[in-house]
């Protein structure tokens, strides 16, 4: 069972959450090229390993969360709010 440690509600079971998508994708500008839109709409990194993604705490606080999960093991190493970044990346940036 995947359990997700919601920053608002604490550790809750997976069935309270809905999977969103890869959190590294960002919406192109409306007038971006068709190629850019194709990449955004259809193509995926489909990472094997550490993956940053969105989950919705649908049956809890109804917040969108950012979760770092290993797609090979299901292990969750970090949970934050959408604008947060895991400590390792925050350090790397400063």
């Amino acid at each position: 069972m995947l359990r997700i440690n919601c920053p608002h509600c604490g550790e809750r079971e997976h069935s309270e959450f809905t999977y969103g998508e890869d959190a590294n994708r960002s919406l192109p500008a409306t007038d971006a090229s068709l190629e850019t839109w194709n990449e955004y709409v259809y193509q995926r990194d489909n990472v094997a390993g550490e993956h940053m993604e969105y989950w919705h705490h649908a049956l809890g606080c109804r917040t969108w969360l950012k979760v770092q999960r290993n797609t090979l093991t299901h292990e969750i190493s970090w949970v934050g709010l959408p604008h947060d970044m895991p400590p390792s990346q925050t350090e790397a940036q400063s």
Partner: protein
Amino acid sequence: MGKYNALNIAWQALRGNKNWQRAWRDPQPKSHYDVIIIGGGGHGLATAYYLAKVHGITNVAVLEKSWIGGGNVGRNTTIVRSNYMLDGNAPFYEMGMDLWRTMALDLNYNAMFSPRGVMNLAHSKAQYDAFARRGNSMCLNGIDAVILSRDEVLEREPALRAADQERFPIFGGLLQPEAGNARHDAVAWGYARAADQLGVDIIQNCEVLDFIKQGEEIVGVKTNRGDIRADKVGLAVAGNSSRLTSKLGLRLPIESHVLQAFVTEPYKPVVNGVVTFGAGHFYVSQSDKGGLVFGGDIDGYNTYAQRGNLPVFEDVISSGLSIMPGLSRLKLLRNWGGIMDMSMDGSPIIDVGPIDGLYLNTGWCYGGFKATPASGWCFAHTIANDKAHALNEAYTLDRFAKGYTIDEKGAGPYPKAH
């Protein structure tokens, strides 16, 4: 190596079954092949077989990282059907049905294809109308489809009576009488043995780690058993497609997802054909050994772990109990998961390129078992001729960029369609 036949079985039995030969060789990889197929699942093995048989290309290797048949081809619920609506799909899957019907004779291996019928249950008038529309489009494509009344449904599957009287009254159903099941392992082993007999090298425990490039062209692969060169490299690794193409900097319109399946202890005959529930996601059939084999939805988050989680487990079982309450009395024998290549329109890709020397076969979602023969046949044609066959010409990689998606479900860009 000899043919499998009744006489042979009797003769071997008399000699204590000590003289059977292995069904395919265990060769060392050569340094060069005309064609390398990565992935010893159903599609890879079928491709190698048709390359040798139809196109006379026998200097072929199938490279499998584990043992053949250990991937999705050995993990699926074996439903074989062609109840598709759209032009790009229907003729392809229907051609596959022809190959299923002759597979055992062609391969000299009993693939146990059993056309016991696939019946989709309708629980409302609206659903029944939608099925009638699907059935009509199937008929227009020359695929047999029969719309059934409630009584006809219950006559075929008396085990559904309980649900009909309780929470999910049955309005009718759509039946594809010539659809059914086949034996998953036998399909892999049959193609492997037949391909091997035509000279194909099946190399197990050989994982492709990277590609060898010369300029912009792919000229071979790096494996844990050394470098192997080839004029053409075909990719048929199902859920692992993006992992391999990422070595080439190539992103695919694919997400990898886990689908679980379940089998109960053997039980007396209770489900006659394949039944799909219309008010929840659940499909069931009964194996020849008596186990009820069933499944439902994918888990829903992208993953490469070949196991699922409990919420979907619970969901599948509760859908099952809604339509067949008697299931609760059976013990579950096994549960497992497989990683599927979920494409963004629910349809597959069988294409040349987009890099010279590379050929793609992917995007089977959770319906690629039934496609095994047609996919192998078309992929072999595409590799041999550097050009798609009419049957797979809609399955291009660039259809997404060009706006020619084949979206059977009408759900838009979404990697969770069938």
